[in-house]
Structures are given as C-alpha cells and as structure tokens.
C-alpha cells in the first residue's frame, strides 16, 4: 500500500542529499518526492509517497527519523488529508483541434496557460488519478509532447499541523 509522509527537515544545504542517499542505500521504494519552503523559514517540508507493506513503511519512517536534519515525520495516510499534484501538459493543438481541447480542459477544471500555432500547455492540479485521466484523453485524441508533474503534496484536514501531530 501507499503511504504519504510529511517530512519536516532543517532548511540547510545537503539535506536532500542525505534523504535521497538514504532512500537509495536502503533500497526503499519511493513513488514521488516533493520539497518546498514552509511557514517557518528554517524548515523545509518534503512530501514522500512510499510504496510498501507495513514493515517497509515502518523502516522508511525509522531510518528517515535517524537523519540528524529530519525534525519530524507524520504519516498523512493515517489521518484525513488533502492530497494534490500539479501537472503541466504540452499537447499538440492545431486550429482544428483547439476547441475540442478547450472542452476537455473545462470538463477537468484544468486551465490553459499557453497557446501557439501548434501546441497548448494545460495546467491541472488534483489527485493522481484525475491527472492520469486527463493525460490519457489528451494522448489518445491529440498527442502529448511533454508532461511535467510535481509529485504529490499533502496537508491534513483540521487545525493540527504536521509538526504537532
């Protein structure tokens, strides 16, 4: 099963090296990893999606916790949470196909962020399955030139932040 972990780390150089080094050394199965600043300037938040059984999941959490720069890990799978990913999709779009693409974009509540004579760039945020579905339709009917996805980020519902969980 998949677990979404919120990993709060010191905002220092080398932290991502430590995390990716650990993941590679212990041969953990990581589906996605996304890092960014938080409400506290000295803290970076990394969302990691781990694939594996309970035992592997426990090892990932325990081994990551051992890293000196890891402040806190909370498993957002265990609580109600909102999970999102952002995708930018560059799709083939001629004069003739543009309106069909616009229809698809509206259905998915995505938005068009760039248009030129041959292509369009579509922005979509949502969960993984929604992005997969849009990509599938666009690929089959129009042809995708490139896709970029951020990996999942997640936040719990309710007032308690991950650092206090």
């Amino acid at each position, binding site marked *: 099963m998949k677990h979404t972990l919120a990993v709060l*780390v*010191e905002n220092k*150089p*080398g932290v991502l*090296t*430590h995390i990716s*080094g*650990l993941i*590679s*050394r212990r041969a953990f199965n990581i589906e996605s990893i996304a890092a960014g600043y938080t409400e506290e300037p000295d803290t970076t938040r990394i969302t990691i999606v781990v694939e594996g059984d309970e*035992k592997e999941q*426990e*090892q990932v959490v*325990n*081994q990551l*916790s*051992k*890293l*000196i*720069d*890891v*402040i*806190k890990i909370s498993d957002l799978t265990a609580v109600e949470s909102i999970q999102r990913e952002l995708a930018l999709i560059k799709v083939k779009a001629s004069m003739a196909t543009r309106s069909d693409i616009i229809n698809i974009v509206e259905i998915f509540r995505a938005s068009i962020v760039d248009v030129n004579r041959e292509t369009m760039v579509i922005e979509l945020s949502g969960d993984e399955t929604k992005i997969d579905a849009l990509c599938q339709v666009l690929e089959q009917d129009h042809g995708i030139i490139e896709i970029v996805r951020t990996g999942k980020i997640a936040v719990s519902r309710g007032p308690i932040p991950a650092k206090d969980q």
Partner: protein
Amino acid sequence: MIITGAEAIIESLKNEKVDVVFGYPGGAVLTLYDALYQADFRHILTKHEQGAVHAADGYSRATGKVGVVIATSGPGATNLVTGIATAYMDSIPLVAITGQVSVPLIGRDSFQEADIRGITTPITKHNYLVKKVEDLPAALKEAFYIARTGRPGPVVVDIAKDVFAASFDYQYPNEVKLRGYRPVYAGNSEMIDKVYGEMRSAQKPLIFVGGGVNLSDSSEELRDLIEQTGFPVISTLMGLGCLPNDHPQFLGMVGMHGTYAANMATTECDLLLGIGVRFDDRVTGLLSKFAAKAKIVHFDIDPAEINKNVLTHIRVVGDINWSIPALSQRVKEVPGELREQVRSWLEKVRNWYIEKPLTYEQDKDHVMPQGVVEKVSQLTQGDAVIVTDVGQHQMWVAQFYGFKNPRSLLTSGGLGTMGYGLPAALGAQCGLPDRPVILFVGDGGVMMNCQELATVAEYNFPVKVLILNNQCLGMVAQWQRMFYGGRYSQTSLKGSATDFVKLAEAMGVAGLRVTKPEELGSVLEQALAIPGPVVVDIRIPEVLDVLPMVPAGACLDEMMMGGVEG
C-alpha cells in the same frame, strides 16, 4: 577571542578533551597542520590515511573515547572512506576532519577536489561542509555530540581551505541545538513490565548479547541481570568480552561459526532477549527459521533496528544502561524465582556446551592456529587487548581466546575490513599504553596496511603482531573448498611468499618466526617479553577449516561440525 579557523579547531579539540589525533597532512590542511605544530598538539603520523582512520577507530574501541582523524582534500579524504564505513557498521564514534578546496574552487573539479560529503553520506551518522568560519565551532560541537551520543557513529567535518585561515571571534558553544536529534536514554517502563511478564512464563529463555553492551559499557549491569535470572547467554562476535567466557551461564558465540550449544539453544528457545544486537545475517542464518519457536524481545537505543531484520514481539527502545538495570530491578522483586524456573533448561544447554565444545585436530608436526590463540590466551591470562584482522584467524580468535573483559576484542565485525588490524592495534596501543595489545592477522590482511609497521616502529608502540601465515587467503579458500569444487581461484599467496621477518626488520620492528610446534611457547614468551613492537611469522597449515560452520542462508541447527567429537 580573535583566532583563525585552524586555531579554533585546536581549541575545540581541547574543549572536547581530545588528547591525540591521527592523520596525514596535505595541501588543503596546511594551515591546520601549522596550528597543530604551533600548539604542540599530539598527532600520530601514519603512513597512509587509511591507517590513520583505522587507528582512530582502534583508539576509540579500546578507550571508549571519540577517535579523531585528519586528512587533506581529495585523495586524502577518499582514503578515509573504508575506515569510516568500518566505524559506521560497528557504531564507533569518530570525528573525521577533512580539508576541502577553497570556497571559490568548490564545484569546479579543482586540484585535489572530491565531494567527500556526498561520498560519505551513506556511511556516516552525519556530515558537514563548513564554508564559513563562523559556522565552524557549532559544526565541531555538534560533530562530537552526534558521534558519541545515542547510537554512536562516525561524523565527517569537511572544511574549506580558506576557512582554516580566516579570523573570527571564537566562542565554543556550551550546548548543541539540534531539533531533529534527541537521543532517548530512558524508554517506556511499561515495556520492561511486559518483558518481565514474558520472562516469568518462559520455559526456555535465552539472553543474546551484542556489541551494544560493549559500546555502552554496561557489562556490569548485564552481569547482574544474568545472575539474577539464571538464564543462559549467547553472544555475537561484537559482544564477546562483555561476559567472561568462563561464566557458568555462557554458551559462547552464536552464528555462522558459533558453538553447537549457542546455535541449538537459539533454535530451541521460547524467549530470546536480544540486547544491543542487530540480527546480522552472519548471526541469524536463514532468517525465517531463526529462533522460530521464540518470542523475540529487542533492547536497542536505535529504534530503526527494531523489525529491521527479524520481527520483534516486544521492543525496548532506550539506552541499555537504563533498560537492563530496570529489568534486573523487577527480577529482584521475587529473588531466585526465575533461576528456579529455568534450572533444567540451563542444565540442558550447558551440557551441550560441555559435551560439544569447540575443538580442533591436534597435529604434532604443525603449529595449529587455534593452539596459537589458546597459548596466547594462557600467556596473557585472557587479559590482553586483542585486535584482529578479517578472515579465518578472526574466527579462531573469537572461538579460542576466552575473552574476560569488555572492550578487549577489537575487530571489524560489520564491514569485515581486511587491513583493519594493524592500524587499529596501533591506535589501541596509543590509547592504552600500559596494556598488552596483541594483533592476530593473516598473511593476506597484514599486507593490506603493512606500511603501518613503520608507524608502530617510529612511535615505539609495543604491539605484538602475530601473523598466522598459511600462505593463502584462508577464509576465501575455505569457501572455494566447500562450495566451489576446490578451485582455488586467486587465493594462493605462495607465489609472493613475503619474508615477514625481513619485512618487520626493514620497517624497524623486531621479527621472529615459528615453524615447529615445539618452538611456539618459547617464541611467544620471547615476543611478549620484548618491550617494543614485534612481528612473529607463525607458519600454519594451508588447508584448515573454521568449524563449526552454518553455510550462508542455512538454518542455525544445520551446522557442519567437523572436528567436534560426538
């Protein structure tokens, strides 16, 4: 006070009560070496950076203090890698200070530049790259704190060359501020109650001790628990010495080359109390059959060790200096109860130990390596600091020396580093100048860092280097004999056949030789009586196996016994 970065390092070392460093100078650390010179700080110059890091490791294992090693950037730093990995696998506290190229040159493939922080990330507890002199005191303070607390381990502090020369207002911090590092000493006492409950209902309990007991200096606490419970005890390689070998509840070493009694007791037991162990594959054999009838309790300071290899029924996370006394306290509430309950089980497993002891074939024409170990044990009353390299001799030492004291076996258990022994022995002797330090080493391993004989001679460290010389890479040859149809691919050393007596003499060390069994006693006595360092080249038979042996991946009760009677 306004001082340079290099002077700040010396001050910080003094603040950490470091009295000696091991190292090797070079371009990026010139300023640091200048400060060492001016401060007249004690520095042991080895002949190779690998020698320096293993020496710092041996020093730490022998004394319990943090070992410190210094090397220059690039090749100096990369030569530390094997030694850092060795220390990491055995949880040895080290601080490695490496020079880095100047800040403006970092990342440009400059002369003698290597990303040692990146290289050592998977083999250190933590590491730093210091690019601003103001960051230096906190980095050093944290490095020592992290190395020695919790589960100990090596820490690398990589320092850019210009930082050594930069001046600043130095102040050593009084405390560390690490949000993500708070080692837990006292754990959950409910767990102790649970363990005690299991102990009261167990019919065949077994205490299983490891390197954590030696590292945490808790052998006295352990002994109290053992004597209160009356439970039989087995040990890993790294746990040897934390309980005297002749203790009436001891069953010897468990695992691949463990005793019959230890391996059978592990297979039969219904409760296994693992204390400061990590259930390494050389101990467990086939994991699914390891202690399969037992509930497993795991005492460890590192929560990540729990359930890493074997599934644990009860976890006791915390310092064993907390958990063992807490458990003993519970046991003392009803004195003698557990001892009575396990009397027949202890008798049974001790009978195995006595009836199927470790033995070896006697040979009146050849010096037997096991006999050498026994003879040294007898001459030193089991009281010396014993260092080994890696291979057959390492296992024979573990089996036949009869360790009496904690921290008296210094060996590369986790990484299995050939070439570890000689520099580790010189480091141990440096830390314990008044104790006899004896190195057992093979003719293969001694060549891997033989340059350190010159260091031993220079500083007159009175290490006794006993080379068990079988003119082959014995352990690899044993596996080739057992599992590769006797095809000795690249394991014969007859072609090179170094004259170790001459090698010793060339390096300034006394050299002796033993070729016949009747010479052994007198030559060993002669070697031990020489006040300085000695190399003894001891010729042993080429074809000998370390037995018993559990083949890799087999169950512990599937031992090949060989020379054992009955």
